[in-house]
């Protein structure tokens, strides 16, 4: 190489662009989750009946409210790409941080694969309606991932602005559907009296429903991945996250109300696109078309947010050398973790093509759940090691330690639910994390610089 490369010995530091505002944070959080209201949540109905689904919706809503409160406090203090990963590194320790990083990458990459599959299937059913059977879904799955990766590569601002628009449209479609079913006059369109039954499996079914109840909200905690790219993170992230969880609580309840008033629970419990079916039952072509588009938008927004979050987490792992340092690079023009984004493309596509959608989703949900378990004791330690007055916090959540304890108890119940439905998968996924942890301790950790992991300007933690 004859010419000198740009940036040699300049002492300049590269960083991500700080361009996002609270609305982008809202779009990132809600965008990932909202697809769950169009499909997936209804498996709770299959697990325990319609009322079990509603109970799961609210109990898991409580779990996520705790998650949002805890996350907001810690992130308003530890503002770095990597979110919970960075929190774990500063509060619990390196091995925990490595595991949390993996939870994030796995949960989001697998969710992204599932979303891309949804887009492919929608294209197929759209083609079938227009008279072309057996459309090959694969090019559309690949196109979804490729296009969104390209968008992410080219900059975070455009990526999340698009997410804001399509998420908002998808959310509005749920509101329109709610108005269209004439919610105040029972028996007109909605038939709750005739369709709602007692708990078909008793209370064990309610517990079992908790697992897929996570589908109503899974991914809202991804908001803190954007911490390095948002202006005044200490204020924007709590605002965006709390706004997001409120939106989702409303959306989840509307969704349940409309769907259970139109379909027998046995059908709903296995439906692939329940909201689209709901619109079809109303016999209005415009509504049907709207729900079709909204489902596609929600799936795209979700995949988009997942690529954003997974790449930030993978990037942070690389930057700290937990994973190969190669991935810790930032694009000099677009200021995105471009290598991580590219790396995740073939992985997401390969997950989508395994045909193991069930496993992939279970893996995603369980990785999320492991992350929430971590948050509960993380919060307790955080308050203990750095009491309130010792460091500046952008947001302080009320009623500590009640949210942390509630979160922990609900997590245990959800593990039990996963055990009921997917016992074998649960053990095999745990085996994955155990082997990965051993690998980290005995091989990978030798490449990590010890003191460099602690980057916050905090005083020495109490008790260490």
């Amino acid at each position: 190489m004859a010419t000198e490369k740009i940036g040699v010995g300049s002492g300049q530091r590269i960083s991500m662009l700080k361009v996002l505002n609270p609305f982008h944070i809202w779009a990132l959080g809600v965008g990932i989750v909202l697809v769950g209201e169009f499909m997936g949540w209804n498996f709770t109905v299959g697990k325990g009946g319609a009322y079990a689904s509603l109970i799961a919706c609210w109990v898991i809503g409580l779990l996520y409210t705790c998650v949002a409160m805890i996350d907001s406090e810690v992130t308003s203090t530890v503002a770095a790409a990597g979110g919970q990963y960075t929190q774990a590194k500063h509060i619990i320790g390196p091995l925990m941080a490595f595991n949390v990083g993996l939870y994030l990458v796995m949960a989001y990459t697998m969710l992204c694969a599932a979303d891309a599959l949804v887009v492919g299937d929608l294209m197929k059913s759209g083609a079938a309606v227009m008279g072309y059977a057996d459309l090959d879904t694969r090019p559309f799955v690949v196109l979804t991932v490729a296009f969104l990766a390209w968008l992410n590569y080219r900059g975070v601002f455009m990526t999340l602005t698009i997410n804001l628009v399509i998420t908002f449209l998808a959310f509005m479609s749920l509101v329109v559907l709610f108005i269209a079913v004439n919610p105040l006059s029972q028996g007109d369109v909605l038939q709750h009296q005739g369709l709602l039954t007692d708990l078909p499996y008793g209370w064990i079914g309610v517990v079992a429903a908790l697992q897929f109840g996570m589908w109503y909200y899974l991914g809202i905690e991804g908001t803190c991945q954007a911490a390095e790219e948002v202006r005044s993170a200490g204020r924007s992230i709590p605002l965006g996250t709390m706004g997001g969880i409120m939106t989702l609580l409303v959306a989840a309840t509307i969704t349940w109300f409309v769907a259970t008033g139109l379909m027998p629970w046995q059908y709903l419990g296995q439906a692939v696109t329940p909201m689209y079916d709901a619109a079809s039952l109303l016999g209005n072509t415009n509504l049907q078309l709207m729900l079709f588009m909204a489902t596609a938008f929600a799936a795209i927004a979700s995949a988009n947010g997942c690529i954003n979050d997974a790449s930030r987490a993978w990037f942070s792992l690389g930057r700290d050398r937990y994973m190969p340092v190669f991935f810790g690079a930032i694009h000099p023009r677009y200021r995105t973790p471009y290598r991580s984004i590219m790396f995740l493309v073939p992985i997401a596509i390969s997950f989508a093509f395994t045909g193991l959608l069930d496993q992939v989703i279970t893996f995603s949900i369980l990785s999320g759940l492991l992350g929430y378990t971590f948050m509960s004791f993380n919060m307790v330690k955080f308050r203990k090691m750095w009491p309130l007055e010792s460091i500046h916090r952008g947001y302080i959540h009320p009623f500590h330690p009640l949210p942390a304890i509630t979160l922990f108890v609900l997590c245990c119940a959800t593990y039990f639910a996963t055990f009921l439905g997917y016992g074998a998968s649960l053990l095999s996924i745990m085996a994955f994390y155990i082997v990965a942890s051993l690998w980290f301790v005995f091989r990978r950790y030798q490449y990590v610089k010890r003191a460099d992991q602690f980057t916050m300007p905090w005083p020495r933690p109490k008790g260490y």
Partner: protein
Amino acid sequence: MKKHYSPPSQGIFGQIFDSLFILVLVYASLMIPLLLKAEEKAESAAAAVQAAANATWESLGQNAVQQAQWIKLGYGPEEAAVLINDRFDYTIDPLMLVITIAVIAGYFIFMLTVSKRQYREVIAEKFD
């Protein structure tokens, strides 16, 4: 003042190996449960179809409103019976439950213990 730990730098092949290792591990854990479950599914599916023959709305316990919605969805009693009779089995195997609890608890305890040791090292190097 203690000497700081300085890590070796990793070559390109080591980096590729480490990335691939995690990937292989993920695929393995996705495939394993599939091998265990394959036979069970085939059996239960066959049984469900058999039970569905000759079903009527009355024998399925569907009231008038439910029947109407099934029909709107394009289901007759025999098709609906497959969905209605497909019930989950929530019997708990106590041994499996104990094993699962032990695995999850063991995992977290192991992780917290090792993390704590590593964390003390980080704090010592950073603040001493």
